[in-house]
């Protein structure tokens, strides 16, 4: 068992545990903090897959910007008191059963890939580096890139319009 496998399993356990803590913590602030731990674990997976650009963007955009926005809204609305327990336990049980069924069906449908042929070699290849992705982004994908800027502009205008007091 090499260092890559040990890192893979450590990160996997970290990601799954913190993702479970996100949906089971009573306090929304704890949920946000566990979600940041999840994002760091996913970034570790990206580094293992040699996608360094996405790892850094994941940390900057998700853990840095989006989670700060979540924390800001929670603190602003003073929601950091534990939410009251759900009155109807059956909805919770039904949710867990439905999720389990979904997981069962998806795993059963997808587990028979050809294991010997379809491998992901960790730490090889250079497509995830900034130079290659940047070249690709500004040559083949330049039109979607510009459209994304229009999307951001409209999202910004929409957030301001929705958020302002009338």
């Amino acid at each position: 068992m090499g260092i890559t496998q040990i890192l893979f399993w450590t990160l996997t356990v970290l990601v799954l545990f913190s993702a479970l803590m996100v949906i089971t913590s009573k306090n929304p602030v704890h949920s946000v903090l566990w979600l940041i731990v999840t994002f760091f674990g996913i970034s570790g997976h990206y580094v293992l897959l040699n996608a360094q650009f996405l790892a850094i963007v994941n940390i900057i955009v998700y853990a840095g910007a989006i989670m700060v926005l979540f924390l800001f809204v929670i603190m602003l609305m003073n929601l950091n008191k534990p939410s009251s327990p759900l009155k109807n336990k059956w909805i919770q049980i039904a949710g867990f059963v439905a999720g389990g069924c979904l997981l069962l069906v998806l795993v059963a449908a997808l587990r028979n890939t050809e294991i010997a042929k379809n491998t992901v070699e960790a730490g090889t290849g250079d497509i995830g580096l900034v130079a290659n992705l940047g070249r690709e982004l500004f040559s083949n994908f330049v039109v979607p890139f510009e459209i994304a800027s229009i999307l951001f502009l409209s999202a910004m205008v929409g957030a301001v319009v929705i958020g302002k007091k009338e």
Partner: protein
Amino acid sequence: MPINYYIVLALCLFTIGVVGVLTRRNAIVVFMSVELMLNSVNLLLVAFSKMHHAAKAATMASAGADGQIFVFFVMAVAAAEVSVGLAIIVMLYRNIHTVDINFLNRLKH
């Protein structure tokens, strides 16, 4: 590392997100579960792009790079979605003074 491990990991993360959406009643936690689902899909896209790159690297040097570009655009759309969604939640809180989605049922009646 076989691709199956990444598939099962991403499916587990996605299912945790689905269960979070179904069971939690706080709108912000529901929103965070949606982010979790987006991230599981991102992880699977990166794993598949690496797999594709390993299979096609001999003929095309940049095989698989489009998968990672796609992840980049998913992140961009997620950032825009979060800003608008949190603005909507703030507006809801200002109008009905709660973020419990059990009270957000006016479209039902």
